[in-house]
């Protein structure tokens, strides 16, 4: 065997990110000291990114089956949900934070490419993409550079691939100044029973690599994603992959076509840890092994070392196990699409991965111990309550100075980039290709995609208010799930399932781990309440920046990607007011609560308040009211109250049709809290005045409060006899805040 001369010691293992215990465990598994290639294989497979070693214990406490799930979390590349009429939906979210922080354009682009491959590797056609982005202070030149790169990366990749980017969220907070978050979600559809599995059944079956040639990009990317981001990280540039959306488009079409030939046994995309990960996961799943000749892998450059070929994260590649004797069918499809399709080895019954180079075995390791659910390490990290937590303040009226000039306060709040229109961003994304997008031309709380060949539509969104999660990881995560569900309901859908992208700091930091454990607990409770099991997702730890004299952790950001179903496309609900004279009603409870609001953070520079009040039961009942009212066709519009409070909610509903409102606060709540507070579980609807009694009855039978706020008017924003002026002024402000900073 090669590398005999210089077997690595622990110092090498350490440089590859392994602990001393892990190094010893590898020696135990192999019964000998690994060579460098083998050590590299273990280091990437046991990295946080591939093994989930510090999170899996808690992830398993989340509801992972039930509901409409056809394939549960972790069983395949993405979860699969029954959407009826013989169709299923595969969807998943994944992070590409660290690459995007270093090289925003390629980092974001390859994030999009990777998540779509997870979907079409299952035989599903991606029909929609979403993304959740977190940046630092938008006024910093570095932030502008990152935004422009990320947005262009997402746009160029998705636009070329022809999958519409239909929804997303973008926040700006200082805690993301260095460590931005780029979470990409893909949603695909497939006929039930026509899905593909990532298996390597049948010893003797040939193994093919298809798609792009293998280069030196992204080597040790998975390990890189699992280390703290430091100033030196910019030197890690070769660990960032380079994307080619045109190749991905060909790979997408060829893969889906290949399934129809019946020649494919199993398929797995190559993301993190490349050939290593795909061969070991497919083999471990089938209890088989593989013998792979690395010399047969098409490479972009000569003289690539075995470990480089094994670890390369070159994009747009797939591993296919083909039925022996039916190779020609496979080759014909890939030839049609002008893609490389190389026979590189075969399935064996040894349970081992044997990699050959120049006729010699360069690595020989068992598959099972490499993978999650097999022998990969599982840790239970110690945690302790974060010190800041007990020092957060529950702000009361007396602690917040009431604005003297409400119009000025409102103008200031609406100039926050967190509330402003993100059109500078989404107008660079093709959101109408595939002619299914219902939301683009009628604004709504969730993106809504018609499913061709059925009467149904899918509603989908990504949500996480990380300020709330920071203030209370347990409650904040419940709110993230609740708000996702609320946004589905406000679009006329019913929540079905979630995928999650768990962005946290360093898990070896006890306070960070405390945030993680509590976030999972809250998320699990909320998911059980809404009967939205977790279909899968991604954990991204180490989201913090190590500076010379301090460590800056991000706010814990467990992003929820939720899927909902509209049984009929006509159930669709817009958030926009429809006509003057309609009654505006708030469903839910109003109270003084400015905690963790954008208003406190932006106007008052207060960042130490508790999470807003929240009750899961109340939330559920409020959502039931909307579902019932929409079934009875009582609603003209529905829009939940979130960042920016009631005022922002009303203005957003006014913009599209350039209507106004006349609102009266007939309650004993101070006006600042009434307008800007972010108490949860509140939804504003507009209805024809003849439907008011019917709506009241629904709320009463669900024990939910209904507050009559006022009515839709021609163009003026009038609240409690304060004239906030013409809607046009607010719309202009809304549209220009971000544009002016970035153009």
């Amino acid at each position, binding site marked *: 065997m090669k590398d005999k001369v210089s077997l690595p010691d622990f110092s090498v293992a350490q440089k590859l990110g392994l602990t001393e215990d892990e190094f010893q465990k590898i020696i135990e598994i192999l019964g000998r000291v690994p060579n460098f290639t083998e050590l590299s294989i273990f280091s990437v497979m046991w990295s946080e990114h591939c093994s989930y070693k510090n999170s899996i214990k808690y992830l398993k406490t989340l509801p992972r089956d039930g509901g409409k799930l056809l394939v549960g979390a972790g069983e395949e590349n993405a979860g699969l949900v029954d959407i009826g009429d013989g169709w299923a939906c595969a969807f998943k979210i994944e992070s590409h934070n660290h690459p995007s922080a270093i090289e925003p354009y390629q980092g974001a682009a390859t994030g999009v490419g990777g998540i779509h491959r997870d979907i079409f590797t299952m035989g599903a056609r991606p029909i929609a993409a979403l993304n959740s982005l977190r940046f630092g202070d938008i006024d910093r030149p570095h932030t502008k550079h990152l935004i422009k790169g990320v947005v262009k990366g997402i*746009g*160029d990749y998705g*636009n*070329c*691939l*022809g999958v519409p980017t239909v929804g997303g969220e973008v926040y700006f907070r200082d805690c993301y100044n260095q460590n931005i978050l780029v979470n990409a979600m893909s949603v695909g559809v497939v006929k039930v029973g026509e899905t593909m599995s990532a298996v390597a059944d049948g010893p003797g079956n040939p193994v093919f690599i298809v798609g792009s040639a293998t280069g030196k990009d992204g080597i040790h990317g998975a390990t890189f994603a699992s280390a703290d981001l430091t100033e030196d990280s910019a030197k890690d540039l070769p660990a960032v992959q380079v994307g*080619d*959306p*045109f*190749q991905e*488009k*060909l790979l997408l079409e060829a893969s889906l076509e290949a399934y129809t030939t019946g020649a494919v046994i199993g398929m797995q995309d190559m993301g993190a840890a490349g050939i290593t990960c795909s061969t070991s996961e497919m083999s471990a799943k089938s209890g088989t092994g593989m013998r792979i000749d690395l010399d047969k892998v098409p490479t972009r450059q000569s003289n690539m070392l075995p470990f480089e070929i094994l670890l390369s994260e070159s994009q747009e590649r797939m591993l296919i196990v083909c039925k022996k004797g039916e190779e020609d069918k496979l080759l014909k499809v890939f030839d*049609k*699409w*002008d893609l490389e399709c190389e026979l590189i080895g075969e399935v064996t019954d040894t349970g081992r991965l044997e990699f050959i180079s120049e006729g010699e075995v360069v690595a020989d390791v068992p598959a099972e111990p490499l993978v999650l659910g097999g022998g990969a390490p599982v840790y239970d990290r110690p945690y302790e309550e974060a010190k800041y937590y007990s020092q957060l303040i529950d702000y009361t009226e007396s602690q917040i100075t009431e604005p003297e000039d409400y119009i000025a306060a409102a103008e200031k709040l609406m100039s926050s980039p967190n509330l402003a229109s993100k*059109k500078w961003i*989404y*107008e*660079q*994304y*093709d*959101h*109408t*290709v*595939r*002619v*299914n*997008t*219902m939301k*683009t*031309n*009628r604004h709504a709380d969730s993106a809504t995609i*018609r499913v*061709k060949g059925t009467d149904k539509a899918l509603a989908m969104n990504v949500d996480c208010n990380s300020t709330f999660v920071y203030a209370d990881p347990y409650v904040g995560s419940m709110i993230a799930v609740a708000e996702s569900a609320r946004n589905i309901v406000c679009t006329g859908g019913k929540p079905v399932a979630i995928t999650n992208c768990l962005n946290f700091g360093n898990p070896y930091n006890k306070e960070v781990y405390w945030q993680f454990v509590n976030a999972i607990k809250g998320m699990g409770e909320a998911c059980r309440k809404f009967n939205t099991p977790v279909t899968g997702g991604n954990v991204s730890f180490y989201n913090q920046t190590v500076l010379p004299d301090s460590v800056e952790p991000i706010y814990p950001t467990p992003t929820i990607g939720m899927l909902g179903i509209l049984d009929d*496309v006509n159930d669709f609900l817009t958030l926009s007011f429809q006509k003057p004279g309609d009654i505006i009603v708030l469903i839910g409870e109003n109270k003084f609560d400015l905690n963790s609001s954008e208003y406190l953070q932006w106007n008052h520079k207060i960042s130490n308040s508790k999470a807003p009040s929240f009750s899961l039961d109340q939330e559920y009942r409020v959502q039931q009211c909307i579902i019932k009212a929409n079934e009875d066709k009582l609603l003209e519009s529905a829009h939940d109250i979130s960042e920016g409070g009631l005022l922002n909610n009303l203005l957003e509903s006014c913009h599209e049709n350039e209507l106004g409102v006349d609102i009266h606060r007939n309650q004993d709540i101070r006006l600042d809290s009434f307008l800007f507070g972010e108490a949860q579980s509140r939804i504003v609807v507009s209805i024809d005045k003849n439907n008011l009694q019917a709506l009241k009855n629904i709320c009463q039978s669900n024990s939910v409060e209904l507050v009559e706020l006022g009515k839709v008017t021609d163009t003026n924003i009038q609240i409690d006899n304060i004239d906030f002026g013409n809607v046009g002024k607010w719309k202009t402000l809304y549209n220009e805040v971000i544009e002016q900073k970035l153009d």
Partner: protein
Amino acid sequence: MKFGVIVFPGSNCDDDMVHIIGQVFNQKVEKIWHKETELPNFTTEDCIIVPGGFSYGDYLRSGAIARFSPIMNAVIEHGNNGGLIFGICNGFQILCEAGLLPGALLKNNQQKYISKNIVLRVETNKRRLTQYCQTNDLLTMPVAHGDGRYYCDAETLQSLKDNDQILFRYSNSQGETTETENINGSIENIAGICNKAGNIFGMMPHPERASEQTVGLTDGQQLFMSLMELKLETAV
């Protein structure tokens, strides 16, 4: 009349066209792989659609490689024989590159991809594609392109005008073709044209994305119905 939708590697609006033509308008439609060299099933009564997308990734210049695809000789012959050809977005770019339509599509003047609804003003209804419209009709539909800035030299522009070849201009909702509405910097706000004979059409906006109530826009139907010469009640 039937439709053939060319599929280049990287085409991504081919499925949309097949859906709209087949499902919404109940017309015969089939895909044609770019490696084909002939169009044996099509007569000059039929229409060849060159759909949007990123043919060959548009890595060299939009449409510059697709024009060399094997099928293009047959498409050009179809056009020269008077057969209908309709290119949308990347298809428009390919038709210009292939010399079937005059001018070129350059990078948007803001150097950014633009995806949004725009308003088109119909410049003539003397042409097949716009025959059911009124001149100065305003149509709302999406654009989604990075290289949509129509350009031609002064002589060509004059000839386009003289021969009634300008089909659409970017406009505001009052029908004014101002510079603000000229989203990509096209010469004289031009969004779509036809050849002199009137059988080959190209436009950057996407009428196929505005042809169903379900997606919230229906103005694109007018163009398809004109092209198909359908009675109004035919559309779903």
